[in-house]
């Protein structure tokens, strides 16, 4: 039986206070989103008297959050899939293929981690406007994909480098082509790495606001953070609808997080330790 000491109790008290600070705002929004607008002011902290889903329905349809959620899903899923394929291909090329510029090209990609997206906003916008890529989801996917590549390449290079040489050798003896070795031997073995980077990419793009706001002005093409920021603003006076909109925007990531928190943490630490 372990001894319960005073410092231990203090630690737990402190952590519980922290947990309250973290969860209280989320619960508050969740609670209010089921109330009527008048109730927010008459009984701000009580549970809703007659929970209503109307706020959600209104935000989903009239607030155009429904279509925005769909757009966000399309953009994130396509970016996710492409970044996995393209990123791991490049990572394999760097980690396993034998050529002189492998190290240098890794550096080239890693520089991308330091570049803030703000710096390329204007040239990208003016160029995309010329070729008709603004107001299109493709125009969002391209930069999202590009900014997802450095971290994907970085993590996957680590994975491919740690794979035993014998693996490739034996596949080689069996007469596999280099593409078969990559797609049938190495890629399946790196799937934990892929999963982690995929999660990071998905979350980052799901939450991205600046690029989406600049590139998309058509309501039917907007992604979730943009539609949300537009719907929730100083000119809207129905608070409970706005709160419902906030809940709609954060629920998907909360679900993903609850399901995969361990992998997300792995990805974070792997991505940060870039030496």
């Amino acid at each position, binding site marked *: 039986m372990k001894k319960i000491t005073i410092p231990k109790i203090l630690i737990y008290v402190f952590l519980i206070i922290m947990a309250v600070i973290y969860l209280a705002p989320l619960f508050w929004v969740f609670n209010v989103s089921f109330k009527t607008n008048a109730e927010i002011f008459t009984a701000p902290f009580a549970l809703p008297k007659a929970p209503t889903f109307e706020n959600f329905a209104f935000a989903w349809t009239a607030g155009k959050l429904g279509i925005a959620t769909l757009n966000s899903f399309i953009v994130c899923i396509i970016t996710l899939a492409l970044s996995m394929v393209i990123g791991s291909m490049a990572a394999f090329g760097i980690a396993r293929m034998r050529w002189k510029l492998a190290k240098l090209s890794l550096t080239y990609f890693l520089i991308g981690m330091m570049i803030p997206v703000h710096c390329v906003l204007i040239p990208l916008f003016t160029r995309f406007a010329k070729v008709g890529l603004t107001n299109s989801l493709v125009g969002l996917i391209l930069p999202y994909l590009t900014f997802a590549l450095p971290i994907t390449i970085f993590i996957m290079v680590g994975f491919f480098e740690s794979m035993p040489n014998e693996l490739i*050798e034996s596949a080689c003896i069996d007469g596999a082509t280099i593409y078969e070795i990559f797609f049938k031997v190495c890629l399946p073995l790196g799937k934990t790495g892929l999963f982690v980077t995929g999660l990071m990419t998905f*979350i980052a793009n799901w939450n991205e606001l600046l690029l989406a706001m*600049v590139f998309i002005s058509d309501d039917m093409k907007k992604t979730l953070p943009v539609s949300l920021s537009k719907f929730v603003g100083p000119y809207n006076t129905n608070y409970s609808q*706005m709160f419902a909109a906030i809940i709609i925007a954060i629920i998907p990531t909360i679900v993903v997080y609850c399901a995969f928190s361990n992998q997300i943490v792995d990805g974070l630490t792997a991505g940060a330790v870039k030496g």
Partner: protein
Amino acid sequence: MDKLLRNKKAICVFMAPAFILFTFVLFIPICQSVYYSFCDYNALTPPKFIGLENYKTLLSDTTLIIAIKNSIFFLIFSCVTQLIMGLFLAALLTNIDKGRNLFKNIIYLPCVLSSAALGLLWMFIFSPKLGINQLLAKLGIEGPLWLMDTNGYIILPMWVIAFVALWQYVGQSMMLYMAQISGISKSLYEASYIDGCNKVKSFRYITLPLIRPMVATAMSLNAIGSLKFFDLIFNMTEGGPNHKTEVLATHLYQQGFKYFKYGYASAIGVLLLVLCLIVTAFINKVVKTEQYEM
């Protein structure tokens, strides 16, 4: 096998997609951005080279000065508080067994949520008639105008936003420190206890020196993150009241996409990039030391 791995064509196939994307969507635009920053360029006219004119305007732009002040405030505030809070939480969490994952996951949760949504959430919490002020009214206190007060050198809204940023992102620093601390061998601590160290001392003389490389990493992440800071401010105050809470990123957005001064906004972008590089180099030089054997 060697021949297979030196196959030039295969290397090209593997590298080309990533390389092309990177070059066209990242590398060339950065060069263009630098060029535009020397140009008179807006939505109506094509870029025209004007030399250092935009950078001269930067110096006399009062909003920009406020934006730099605010950005630097964020930078220092987030580096210092995240270091202290992150380390403190990591130290506490690595010392308990029951509920460690639960608390860790709760504190990390906001990091994965949309900062646009969280910004709006906190905007309501600190709005004049809702949230905190409702709570204070119950206690008979009239709460301040959290996001509109403009008194003082660093105005109240900036502290509020900085607090929200700390709330949202401290989980990240905590996670990084925790990963590093749990990598330290237990035998080092046992040896120190035999030598008469208590927990605090062993933290000071074993943990701290051994996690220094991670401090550098976490700090540079914080620093770059706080310079790039956009979503929270945009949704909490939109730079107001009267541009008092503007930071570099919001100012760039305003100039570029509200007033369509592409050239001038590019100059702000270049300034941001240079600041990012300087700060990262500085932190890595000052904080980073050689890796110890763990």
